């Protein structure tokens, strides 16, 4: 079931036994969907290098595997914009600061914010919307 591209994952819950991953790649299991009650997890195999961030991996996925993945970020490196928050292995983290590991990583949208799509939640103040 591990494929190099967008795939529909059979699991309904993220905490499960994961396939073995080669040391040179990491496996991202990413929540997808536009409604909390109608989502799925997609698996993406990503080339892994020491020090890579989860955001690096998500950006790699968008460029190489599935450009329809919705993520939110701006500064990429500097942890200055503070907009790339998501749930990484169950913890709220800036995806730019969360280190990718050669194990399986589960990335999900913030649980307490309204969902927009995939990993993007509504973190914009009300008075900054149209």
């Amino acid at each position, binding site marked *: 079931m591990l494929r190099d591209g967008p795939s529909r994952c059979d699991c309904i819950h993220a905490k499960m036994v994961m396939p073995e991953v080669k040391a040179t790649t990491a496996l991202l299991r990413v929540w997808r969907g536009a409604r909390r009650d109608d989502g799925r997890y997609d698996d993406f195999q990503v080339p892994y290098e020491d020090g890579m961030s989860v955001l690096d991996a998500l950006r790699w996925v968008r460029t190489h595997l599935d450009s329809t993945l919705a993520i939110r970020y*701006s500064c*990429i*490196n*500097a942890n*200055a914009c503070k907009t790339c928050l998501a749930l990484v292995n169950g913890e709220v983290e800036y995806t730019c600061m969360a280190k990718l590991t050669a194990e399986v990583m589960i990335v999900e949208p913030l649980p307490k914010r309204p969902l927009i799509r995939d990993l993007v939640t509504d973190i914009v103040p009300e008075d900054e919307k149209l």
Partner: protein
Amino acid sequence: MYAAIAAAQNGASTILLDKSQVGRGGATIMAQMTVAVALGQQEPDSVASHLQDTVRAGRGLCNEELSALVCREGPARILEMEQWGTRWAREGEHLKQEHAPGHSVKRCCYVDFLNTGPAVAATLRRKVGEFPMIRRISNFAAVDIVVDDGRAVGAIGLDIARGEFVSVEANAIVLSAGGLTKLYARNSASANMGGEAYALGLWAGAELIDMEFVQFFPIGHLAPRLVGMDPIMWDPFRYKLGGKLLNGRFEEFIDRYGSSDFGKYNATRDVAAYAILKEVEAGRGTPHGGAYLDFRHIPEIELRGAFGPVIDRLLKNGIDLAKTPVEVGPMAHYHMGGIRVDTNMATRVPGLYAAGEAVGGANGANRLSGNAVTEAFVFGHRAGISAAELARRAKPRGRSEWKHESIARIQQPLGKSERTRASPAALQTELQNIMWEEAGPFRTGPRLSNALMRIRKMRDQGLAYAPIGTNKSFNLDLHDWFELRAMLTTAEAVVASALARAESRGAHQREDFPQADNSLEKNQVLEFKSGGLASRWTEPVRLHPCENGDA
């Protein structure tokens, strides 16, 4: 944000549109370094001296009226920012000012530690929030400026979260969407530096100037992967501590390229960039295609004394400077060229202004360290005042049919999407590689011609058919498609200008024309004509010899 504040202070009802969240995107927030202003608090200084240094660095191409504006109004903006809450580093009773390369005195203010950008962005966000007449809109990607009857009358943009195109009407528009460093594979940019301000300006009828002058920072961070820091963070380390530049064989090499280094970092930016890339070309680069920057000879206590908490941030990234050298190399960092404006920040299109890095001309062929944030403040302030003044004088317009027409027109090219083609995001990466390989720090005629061909091919064959996902909300394919469209126009402007300038000057280095040509001490001006770029040469704007910037 500075423009919005100045416009509101001058009575204008203002809409502040930002592709990211307001005040969290762009370049300023990433600037960890310094702001150059002739306050003369650290040691005697003058506007004339700052101007002289700026113009000297610009190698004959500065629009000296714009340079003088930056130098003259910089001090007032810095002090204003302090009143608004920015805690500039102080020494006793005065602001602390450091030396930076190219400046003849200590004139660079900063916020500790390496926190200048985030601190000033926070100040401006707070200040913007104090004005009820500034309406902030986040996640709005402007994709077109609408010109009606020769005047800029509004903008069309993508409301990213909802996936809808929206029109915004305005009596005056300030383009302040930053530079173009995202065009390059190696860059220090945030996500939104794709050069859209230049393309939007060009399409609307404004002129661009000096587009060939992209500044490459010689020792940007390449590896190990470092997050939580600006990739160009090593410069202050170099001023304060020195450090050795070594090639992949751990040999010092700068002296092979006509300069000396010896751990003191005397080598100028252009020599350092050239030497590193030539070592890589000769097969003596580091694993990530750069050079090593080595601080192992500096005692840890000195490292900590100079950079305290930053040393811990590095350790969190697995980088122990006392034990491990880092890999560095040239990367795109800033753009000297940009939209051609007068000293009121007005383009030649009535109603259209520019501010910040989007403006071209103030820095000529090369920018001094510390002048970028200064110009962001000064030009923003000036543009806001000009726009407010125009808005006050504006008469109500009757015609608003343009809104529907423009929204329909902007979506027309989207119909050809083919599933099997490269996505807009993949094409952006390809464009970044083209620009890095063929139009990077060291250029030749054949490589630039090749770049031009590949850019045009991507525009005609790639962009038109790039697949766009069908999701409505936060459809990044759609966002990337419009961004790529602008990136291609801006990339073409850079490459065409670089090809036409058959000489080496400042940041524009041609390996096939290694010397400066006095007859080319001129600016290249581009405009959009009959669906393509047209260029001409103009004489640089000079101050009268009796003016020194103080006037």
